[in-house]
């Protein structure tokens, strides 16, 4: 299966504009399965981290209140073309994913 993280980047001078979309159910734990009536256990991303050439440029702590298939956008300075940008996440059930892209 294809990556569960999609990243779009734009460079404006030395400022990188990063937008990312993560494939994740972000279950709150409060929802019931419409077929079985059983509660669906919480399953959500807790942390999103991004590094540029190994330097952390964003760390986000997240709750179940982030929408299904989360979207984030942020900007950082000191970027240049060819930099290696990584975005990774970890969820409350130990799931994890990471993607690498070049600015």
């Amino acid at each position, binding site marked *: 299966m294809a990556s569960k993280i999609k990243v779009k980047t734009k460079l404006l001078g030395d*400022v990188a504009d990063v937008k990312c979309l993560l494939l994740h159910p*972000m279950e*709150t734990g*409060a929802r019931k399965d419409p077929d079985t009536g059983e509660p669906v256990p919480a399953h959500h991303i*807790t*942390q999103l*981290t*991004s*590094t540029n050439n190994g*330097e*952390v*440029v*964003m*760390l*986000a*702590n*997240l*709750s*179940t*209140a*982030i*929408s*299904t298939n*989360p*979207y*984030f*956008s*942020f*900007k*950082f*300075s*000191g970027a240049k073309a060819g930099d290696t940008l*990584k975005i*990774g*996440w*970890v*969820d*409350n*059930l*130990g*799931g*994890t994913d*990471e993607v690498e892209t070049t600015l």
Partner: protein
Amino acid sequence: MQLSRRLVLRGSLAFAALAALPRTLLAAAWPEKAFSETAAADAMKDLFGTDQTTASDQITMKVPQIAENGAVVPVTITTTLEDVESISIVVAKNPRPLAATFELQPGTLPEVASRIKMGQTSDVMAVVKTSSGLFSTTKEVKVTIGGCGG
């Protein structure tokens, strides 16, 4: 980050998660207590040590007045305040009010956007922590009962 690593190490699942973490994710602990509070003030006390903030017009929060859909409410927060350490989103009437905390790093611009869930009409507060204290701006977002689409 003032938070103890013990929080993350608690529980085998979290421990397994730590072992499997990409290197980028070893930065800090997830503030579990703040995220599990059911009152906005408690969540803020856990996270910042206080729930008192100074209202600031140097923070711009873009949210819809009426959410088209409570499941996906676009939020964009920017600020012209100096030395920003973190930007948080607090939804007063959500079952767990603290939605997200963005820890800014040296070089990160104070400009973040995401999409959040809202269970009902509520105040949404952007809390900006700088080296000189806590600042905030608040807007009400109405969440309505959809028609057939919603």
